[in-house]
């Protein structure tokens, strides 16, 4: 079990390094599509990163349930 803070750090680190987003924009309520301009292709690439680095496979349903940075953190916290 990882803490939510650890997971948030991983999410922020991944979104900044892999998706060239700015850390200051990645507050928990930031909307993945409306605020961060991510799209369906980015969702697939996020899932690849999650699987490679955290060993967790996400389903299409999982990805569709993610709307904010906090949603990503919560899902990963629940599964890990």
């Amino acid at each position, binding site marked *: 079990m990882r803490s939510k803070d650890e997971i948030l750090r991983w999410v922020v680190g991944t979104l900044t390094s892999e*998706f*060239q987003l700015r850390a200051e924009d990645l507050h928990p309520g930031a909307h993945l599509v409306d605020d961060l301009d991510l799209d369906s*292709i980015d969702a*697939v*690439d996020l899932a*690849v990163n999650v699987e490679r680095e955290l060993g967790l496979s996400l389903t299409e349903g999982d990805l569709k349930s993610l709307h904010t940075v906090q949603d990503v953190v919560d899902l990963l916290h629940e599964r890990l």
Partner: protein
Amino acid sequence: MTRRVVVTGMAGLCPIGSDWKSVRDALVAGRSGVARVPEWEDVAGLKTRLGARVPGFEVPADYPRKKTRSMGRVSLLMVRSAELALADAGLLGSPELASGRVGVSCGSSTGSPPAMDVYARQLFVGRTTSGIGGNEFLQFMSHTAAANVASFFGVRGRLVPTCSACTSGSQGIGYGYEAIKFGLQDWMLTGGAEEFDVMEGAVFDVLFAASTRNDEPERTPRPFDAARDGIVVGEGAGCLVLEELEHARARGARIHAEMLGWATTCDGRHLTQPDPEGMEQVMRLALEGAALPPEAIGYVNAHATGTETGDIAESRATHAVFGARTPVSSLKGHIGHTLGASGALEAWLSIEMMREGWFAPTLNLEAVDERCAPLDYVRGEQRAREVEQVMSNNFAFGGINTSLIFRRFGE
């Protein structure tokens, strides 16, 4: 009623430079872009260790991630050359890009090999989709160069992917020309690109068509030379902005040259063995389309890659059309064989040389192979010559032949 087509933008990235001035200096100095490739040393069976890369290419910092994520190096090179050509034409950011009257016609031999590698390892070897992201296919699909150019610049007209190996670039120009000539588009981004990768080296190596003069990279390839021993693969991208003449005049565009015609044919026989009859025929058809006799061509830019059979066949075909009276050279001694980019780069450089009134020699051509026809080979040093028309020829696996004709622009 057909329309006249002119070249209003030109640019290229190649192993000896990424602007005309740098390339010109290297052509005049006899400087080669070929080097040894140390990272190929571990490939079992691979005999060639030579390549010609675009030095110092970096993705411009202002290219947005959502545009570059779908690009392998082949698309990045193509997009950058298109950006430079658009800027040269004064059309960067033009609202006409989205009008439906402007299109893209370009290609490469293949999409980006490193993206193929992900699929090969995971799916074919590992039998899993794990690790495959959303962009790999977009980077290696056959029309990745053309599609990424359209996406990057917001082009909404025709998309013509000309993925035909070594004629990808020349067919890109040719089909773009036709779209304008017949009134279907007003201007087109045309050309081709290729990305340097061991896969390209291996393609020719397994056919015993790659040069193995590994300890003398600056002395190979040697088009038409008796001691030639094959191709050196290279990379690059070239783009011509082709535009309908009246459209160009109306906006006061600087016109580099007029494209008078082209032809493309295929041999319909063998996929790798060159066919001199097909080569001769495509040159004659291009002349016919441009309504010119052979003597109107003042310079022929040969495909001549440095292979034994290809150079002989091409020289004989060229001789059948032009005899020994027309200067001929190949730029592959300087830049290697840039495959999908070669037709576009060679068209660009042929136009630049015509504008300046001189033509580069074939680098490394010291003693012409006796089996090659007795052409007027430009060798040793550049040839000063004022000419009105040039021809640029390319030939590809698949038995594909192309011949492009450009004229110095005048009213």
